[in-house]
């Protein structure tokens, strides 16, 4: 449950792989209820992150900050400041703890602060708020991740571009929730982390 520069790096590289493999799928999810770019945005962002991480960061805080800055300057869409803020908050928090659950809790608070979304608003907050407690409890599983992502399907969007569609946003999985699902999957798969 403690994070190091090395486990952070392999977590991120795995996340970047998943984004790369699924970028078209993520953009397709973003098409009916958004502008169809989420996968391409995240792919651009994670390429920049991967590039940054080829140079080993001096400590966890520097690592988080590098990731945040890469995402903030390259993603372009709403997910840029949101993931960027998540990693910035983990950078801040990492000065007092390297406990993964605590770090993710700070990240979630940052995302909620930045975007103003609550659970149920059909945003990545739904996945984060569902799964951060699971990480803390040591009970995260692939199944729970899938269910958290799927739960956004029947929600009516209250934040982000999908909210312009009102009731019509129902019946589609939220793209940012799907990409956040990959982040948690990558976490689950990172050896020596959970």
């Amino acid at each position, binding site marked *: 449950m403690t994070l190091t520069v090395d486990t952070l790096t392999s977590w991120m590289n795995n996340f970047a792989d998943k984004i790369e493999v699924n970028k078209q799928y993520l953009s397709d999810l973003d098409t009916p209820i*958004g*502008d*169809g*770019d989420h996968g391409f945005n995240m792919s651009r962002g994670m390429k920049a992150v991967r590039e940054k991480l080829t140079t080993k960061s001096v400590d966890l805080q520097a690592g988080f900050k590098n990731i945040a800055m890469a995402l903030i300057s390259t993603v372009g869409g709403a997910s840029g400041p949101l993931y960027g803020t998540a990693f910035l908050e983990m950078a801040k928090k990492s000065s007092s703890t390297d406990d993964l659950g605590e770090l993710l809790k700070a990240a979630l608070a940052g995302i909620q602060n930045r975007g103003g979304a609550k659970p149920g608003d059909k945003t990545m907050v739904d996945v984060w708020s569902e799964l951060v407690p699971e990480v803390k409890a040591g009970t995260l599983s692939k199944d729970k991740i899938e269910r958290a992502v799927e739960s956004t399907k029947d929600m009516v969007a209250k934040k982000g571009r999908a909210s*312009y*569609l*009102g009731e*019509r946003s129902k019946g589609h999985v939220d793209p940012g929730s799907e990409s956040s699902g990959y982040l948690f999957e990558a976490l689950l798969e990172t050896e020596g982390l959970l």
Partner: protein
Amino acid sequence: MSLGITIVSHVPEIAEGLPKLLKQVAGDVSITTAGGTNDGDIGTSMEKIMQAFDDNEADNILAFYDLGSAKMNLEMAMEMSDKKVHLYDTALIEGAYTAASLIQAGVGLDEIEAQLKPLTIKD
């Protein structure tokens, strides 16, 4: 009934740029624009607006504008045009974006108008 959008702005660049934002979420919606005066200066032109109505592929047009004098030219163009045009006193960018998203999603005019109501800020 097919729905399209016409944007009327005092500024040619705004009339050119706004469709790029709308097209991202409404690739199949016909969007036409009238920006600036006949000389390309800041202002609006009834002729350009009539042209934008004509060029629009839809038979029902939702029209959005920036300032009051654009509305006057819009209304004159509506009186002279055969197209069915619906004029909204909403925020220009935000109203047009909302309408574009909903038209693309296949939402009907009544429901679109209900969603545009809270964005009404001009008269």
